Each structure stands twice: as structure tokens, then as C-alpha cells.
């Protein structure tokens, strides 16, 4: 098996375990390329990629753009803020206009869940979902698993805890799909108001007590409180959230074993984790960012090779 089973990366839900392994193996090769003095390969010199972001992003957008450029693809960037979307153009029209300029692949972030899936049914181009509302953020989940694999050797059989706003988090959902597919055990922890109703149907256990949960896990993925998505008050105050669900160095040191700390960024320092935890030896937050480029190169390379 040397080919992805899909033509678009819309979500982890649509991938097979073998797809994930293929992406990881390909990313290993790209990681080696990224450590060369010349960090660029000419594979995609005849491919043009449009990065279409209808929502703000720093890390993901930069990471995608770097990955595309390291593969020698031509890149065009588009932000909804400065575009005709403001004049009332529809999503399909916007994208078809871009595609008529002979673009082969679209990397899209959109505030509406399912925007990528919708697009893939209506336009002729490979689509990579760079986050669609509270639905999925597949490349983030892939780089998270890849970072666990790099740190602990394997994802299968590991205990992974996801802490925070599970309800609004596309990172959480994609991570749960990816981790379960690879045979990891997953627990979630956070305020009951931020737990989806059907969370247990995903094969995930809810552990309300943070200390217990941390003692159980090998890896804790600390999610950001997404203030921009919290339309109503889900917990009394940020301070109270931090007291119950925030990780500080004292808590980390009091655990039975040394666990790995992850965070998809951007960090609210002092809310979900304190600075000394984010910058500690146990944290692999910056490794995640580094691996993000290799993972995105692998995804783009594998999808581009299916464009005929």
C-alpha cells in the first residue's frame, strides 16, 4: 500500500489506519529533508495550491505555506477579510473563480462545519481541510499523533488525555478519531458544560477529576479555552476553570509518573497551563509545531500524487 485511500483530506473520520501510517512514514522522510542545509525538494514544481482562510490562523497557515514551498509548489494566499466574500460572493463561486486560474489543490479553513466536504462535492480540486468550525482539524491530529509516536515510540496502547473545551474543539474530535484508529486509549476531562452529549459513543471515557486523569495518562493534550466560540457562559470564571482544569508545575511534580504535555496552540499562558509547564522538559509543544510542517508536506505530497 503506497497510496492514500482518499483524494481529499476532509477529516480523520474518512481515513484508514494504513493511511495514517503512510502519512507518518512519508513525514519521516520529509523531516530528514527539513534538517538538511537546503530544506527544499522539487517534487511539486508543477502544482499550484491555494490557501483559502475564512478564519484567522497563524500557525496552521504558516505551516501549510512553508510545507507547500518546501515542496516547490506555487502558492497563492487568500484571506476572507480582504476579499469579495465581504461583497456577498458564495463559497463555491469564490473557490471556482480561484480554480479557473488553474489551481490544483485547495487548503481551506472555514468557520462552518462540513465546508470542506461541501466543497469537495462541487469543485474539481483536491481539498485539504485546515479546520472547519467545531468539526475537524485533521492535520493537527496527525501531527499530534506523530509527535506522540516520536516521543514514545508508538501510539497504540498509550493512554492519552484531552483536557478542556471538548465541545467546541475540532482538535479534540480529530484527535479522538486518530488516536482510536491507532489503538490508543482516550479519556477526556473538562467542565461538564463543555462535554458533548454523545462523547461516550466515540469510545471515550469522561474523567471529571483532573488529578486522577493525569495519573492515568502517558500524554496530556491541553486544549485552549476558545473564548471566541463561547457564546454563553460555560463556566463561572476563568480563574475557577484554571483552579479545576489548569495544570501547573506543582501538580505535574506531584504525579506518580512523568507525563508528556502537549498543546495545539495558541496557549493562554496561566489558564490551561502555566508558563513553567509549557516551557518544561515534559512539554513537546514546539516539537508539535516542527512536526506540523513535515506532516503537511506528507499530506500534500501524497494527495498531489493522486492528481492526474
Amino acid at each position: 500500500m503506497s497510496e492514500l485511500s482518499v483524494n481529499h483530506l476532509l477529516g480523520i473520520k474518512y481515513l484508514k489506519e494504513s493511511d495514517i501510517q503512510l502519512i507518518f512514514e512519508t513525514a519521516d522522510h520529509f523531516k530528514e529533508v527539513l534538517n538538511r542545509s537546503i530544506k527544499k525538494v522539487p517534487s511539486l514544481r508543477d502544482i499550484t495550491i491555494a490557501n483559502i482562510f475564512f478564519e484567522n490562523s497563524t500557525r496552521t497557515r504558516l505551516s501549510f505555506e512553508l510545507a507547500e514551498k518546501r515542496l516547490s509548489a506555487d502558492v497563492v494566499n487568500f484571506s476572507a477579510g480582504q476579499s469579495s466574500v465581504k461583497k456577498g460572493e458564495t463559497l463555491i463561486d469564490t473557490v471556482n473563480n480561484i480554480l479557473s486560474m488553474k489551481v490544483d489543490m485547495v487548503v481551506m479553513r472555514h468557520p462552518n462545519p462540513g465546508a470542506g466536504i461541501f466543497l469537495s462535492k462541487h469543485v474539481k480540486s483536491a481539498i485539504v481541510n485546515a479546520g472547519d468550525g467545531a468539526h475537524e482539524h485533521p492535520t493537527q491530529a496527525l501531527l499530534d499523533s506523530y509527535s506522540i509516536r516520536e516521543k514514545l515510540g508508538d501510539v497504540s496502547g498509550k493512554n492519552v488525555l484531552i483536557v478542556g473545551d471538548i465541545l467546541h474543539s475540532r482538535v479534540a474530535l480529530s484527535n479522538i478519531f486518530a488516536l482510536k484508529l491507532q489503538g490508543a486509549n482516550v479519556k477526556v476531562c473538562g467542565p461538564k458544560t463543555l462535554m458533548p452529549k454523545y462523547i461516550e459513543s466515540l469510545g471515550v471515557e469522561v474523567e471529571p477529576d483532573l488529578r486522577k486523569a493525569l495519573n492515568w495518562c502517558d500524554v496530556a493534550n491541553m486544549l485552549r479555552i476558545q473564548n471566541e466560540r463561547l457564546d454563553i457562559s460555560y463556566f463561572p470564571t476563568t480563574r475557577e476553570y484554571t483552579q479545576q482544569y489548569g495544570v501547573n508545575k506543582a501538580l505535574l511534580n506531584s504525579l506518580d509518573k512523568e507525563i508528556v504535555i502537549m498543546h495545539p496552540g495558541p496557549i493562554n499562558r496561566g489558564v490551561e497551563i502555566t508558563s513553567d509547564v509549557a516551557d518544561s522538559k515534559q512539554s513537546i509543544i514546539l516539537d508539535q509545531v516542527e512536526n506540523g510542517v513535515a506532516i503537511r508536506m506528507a499530506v500534500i505530497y501524497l494527495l498531489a500524487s493522486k492528481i492526474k
Partner: protein
Amino acid sequence: MSQKVLLSSKEINIILHRLACQLLENHLNFKDTVLIGLQPRGIYLAVRLAKILKEDYGVDHIDLGFLDITFFRDDFRRGDKTLEANKTKIDFLVEDKNVVFIDDVLYTGRSINAALTAIQSFGRPKEVELLTLIDRRFSRHLPIQPNYRGRQVDAINGEKVKVMWEENDGEDVVYLVKT
């Protein structure tokens, strides 16, 4: 499908020693020379030659690396299958070194062309040479010729040259396969 033996294990052994001697003649102590086996099939020949040079000819240190050229190939998206990469392992700088590319079969020359681009990511070599076990004559798409060749073969396009190595395929033998 029929196949005939082009080189037996004994012949391969003689050729490997001759190639090692030719390398030695031009590079003496290998102080400024690095051997680069091209993935996936050139690495066995490279390892073999390095071993002969060390054990039989007393060269005490050889820089040996493996170069994968998948991402530098010019046929991306032209075939049906995704091109699968192999590991690149070059733990030294090639800046100002004499680089010897080592591959099992030289056919169209496109792999070597890709390798010439790929090696630049690791520095600017002083000189690049090419060593191949089998040189398929009359089949080149590019003006590339080997500096060291094991055996020259006239094979038509429908034929395939298959090089087998003991460590990977169970025996040392080279076949000409007619399909």
C-alpha cells in the same frame, strides 16, 4: 517470461574487486572522497565496495552515505502509483569532496540526473563520479556516462536487468529478464 544469467556470483565477486581497485587507484586513501549509494538498489553495491576496500585493501576510513532521490525525480504524477521514498542517510558534508555515486544499473540516466540535483542539498561537491555494476548501452535519455562500470550490456527496451544481492535476495546474481 524468460531469464538468463548475465553474471554469476563468482563473476560479480571478480568485478567488485576490480571496481574497488579502480576506485583505489583514483582516490588512494579516500580522505577527500565519499561514496554515496543510491536508494533503493544501489546501497547494497555501495556497502559491498566499502567492505572490500576496508577489509581487502586496508582503507581505514570511508565516508559512506545513502541518497534517496524520490522527491527529485522528474516523473512525479506521470506513473499510476505514488512514488515511495526511502531513507537518506548522509552524516557528513559533501562540500569540496569527491563524490562517487554508486548504483546497480545505469539505464536512462534520469535517476543520476535527479541524484545530481539532490546531492546539492548537502553541499557543493568538488567533483562527482558515477560507478555502476551494469551499464545498459544505447538506452540513455540524457548525456550521462559512468566513470566505473562493471559490465556493459546491450538490452532492448522490453528487457529488464535484475541485480540480486545475497544480503537482500539470497544470492549474488544478475539476470536479463525478457517479458
